[in-house]
């Protein structure tokens, strides 16, 4: 059986097709201004028997394709449990939100928390800060990793942090150290959410931000927990959705 999952997030859309539970194909596109149109483009020519949608655009997809939907919380939990069976804690940092889920031994979500309204500590936050400091998002983590020390960043609000960073740059501070400070701030915030929801044991880290190796390092240092990251961590939600499509 071919089952597909599509994760329509605020920044990007991912799609995964599984053949009898094994990943066969994955695709990715930017969300842009027309999530429904982009999603349609992305699945063009794709072969599947069942499809299920998740992410903030899931309802648009549901209407157009008459597909079942599931929240990204459940999809990410399912995906993480697929890559690392038995895992009890999942941290997902995506484009515009971050969340932590605590799972039962059978992989059911039993507790979760999500950031609210603002983009503090998410992929979007890092993206804006990278730009402010003149780095590309791809080498932002490496630049930060090359710094010897942190420059403390006190604000996590995207708008305030940007002006804080601008004034640090104006004072002639080292941009790598600022970058490192920003990374530390994001990770500390994630760790406090992590510890509130599920304070012990190894963590599966998913979402686009999990592609940043320096964040992973910091996360394991600061949380003092073992961190597992799946291949293509941004695909986790789509894979979870595809599994749920099959199991539905």
């Amino acid at each position, binding site marked *: 059986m071919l089952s597909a999952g599509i994760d329509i997030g605020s920044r990007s859309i991912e799609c995964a097709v599984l053949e009898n539970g094994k990943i066969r194909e994955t695709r990715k596109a930017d969300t842009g201004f027309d999530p429904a149109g982009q999603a349609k483009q992305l699945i063009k020519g794709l072969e599947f028997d069942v499809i299920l949608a998740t992410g*903030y655009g899931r309802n648009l997809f549901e209407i157009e394709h008459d597909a079942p939907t*599931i*929240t*990204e*919380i*459940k999809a990410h939990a399912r995906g993480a449990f697929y890559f690392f069976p038995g895992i009890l804690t999942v941290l997902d940092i995506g484009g515009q*939100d971050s969340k932590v889920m605590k799972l039962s031994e059978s992989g*059911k*979500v*039993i*507790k*979760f928390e*999500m950031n*609210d*309204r603002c983009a503090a500590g998410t992929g979007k936050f890092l993206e804006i800060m990278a730009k402010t400091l003149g780095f590309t998002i791809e080498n932002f983590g490496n630049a930060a990793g090359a710094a010897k020390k942190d420059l403390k960043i006190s604000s996590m609000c995207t708008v305030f942090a940007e002006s804080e960073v601008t004034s640090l740059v104006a004072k002639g501070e080292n941009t790598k150290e600022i970058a490192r400070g920003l990374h530390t701030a994001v990770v500390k915030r994630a760790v406090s959410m992590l510890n509130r929801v599920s304070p012990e044991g190894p963590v599966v880290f998913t979402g686009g931000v999990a592609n940043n190796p320096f964040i992973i390092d910091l996360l394991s240092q600061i949380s003092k927990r073992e961190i597992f990251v799946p291949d293509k961590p941004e695909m986790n939600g789509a894979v979870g959705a595809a599994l749920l499509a099959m199991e539905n």
Partner: protein
Amino acid sequence: MKQDLFKKLQQITDQNIADIEDHKKSGNHAIGFYCLYAPTELAAAADAIPLPLCGTRQDPIEVAEQTLPRNLCPLIKSSFGFAAAGTCPFFSFSDMIVADTTCDGKKKMFEIMSDIKPVHVLQLPQQQNFDLFLDSWKNEIENLKTVIENMTGKKITNEKISGAIRLLNLERKAKKRLMDVTKAKPSPLTGMELLTILFKTGFFADKQKGIDLMNEIADVCNALADKGESPFHTNTPRILLTGVPTGVGSDKVVKILEESGANVVAFENCSGYKQAFQVDETKDPVLALAEQYLAIPCSVMSPNQGRFDLLEEMIREFSVDGVVDLTWQACHTYNVEAYKIQDFVNERFNLPYLHIETDYSESDTEQLRVRIEAFLEMI
């Protein structure tokens, strides 16, 4: 059948404004109340209509923010905005306002509100230790009695208070009966319907009309439940809502829950089951009022064991599948208490729990929807 009742409710609600006007024209008074701790019996005992005041809508908040800080509880801003803009008919009808020191934001807001209308503030103890605080609270009630006597020019005798206690006990009994119809599985009423009925009947000038109507609705709903008629199924998730007061206009969480396939069967908050108490009719009436009102389990009390007891009772009696705890933005007492409530719900009942912090605006509706749907997926 249910539709007819809602039509009737609407008619009586329309008629109600005229009733209040008539009552006032014949030389009687109306007194506005903000909080459950204020004993409305004292108003009724002076032939004054006790009016619960509005504070559950978004629209007056803009006006309020010209005076009050933006990062304040929306309930406080909304209450003040209605007063400042003069858009709440019940506020306009009120000859005086009975306020309370239930939280710092309200307490300080009332100082500003007193420029608009006479406000009498009850100094509420923050602990339910009767040995320490019952006397001072009883004093507050006696003072309020004098204030109302002076304003209305009517003597409030013990007989009058006892009569008012009996009447309002009947009202609370009817309210409880009505709230209990959702114990049926599936429940004959949606949470939104229950909320609307409770909200509208609260404003009735003629208490007896409200009592009769609530009893009538309860009868009809119980008959529907007996026949198994319901907008829901036996497997529809049954949700208990706890936390801050929620009314028509500040109902977005209830709406999203029911749009997402759940049924809010129980309201533990002040607009709901916290009102289901009875004042002792055999004791000295002022003492009985003092005791019963002080026992209300609001998060301003520290500690607040009563809320846990009430939750325990309700979770069992309403066969609840999950608990949603609502906090208005900047309400510290409910926000902090959520930590213990979560533990209690998770550990004691092994039920899913969701804490939501929000305001009256629609700006976070989609994010709330994700959270609420994910919460329902846990059930």
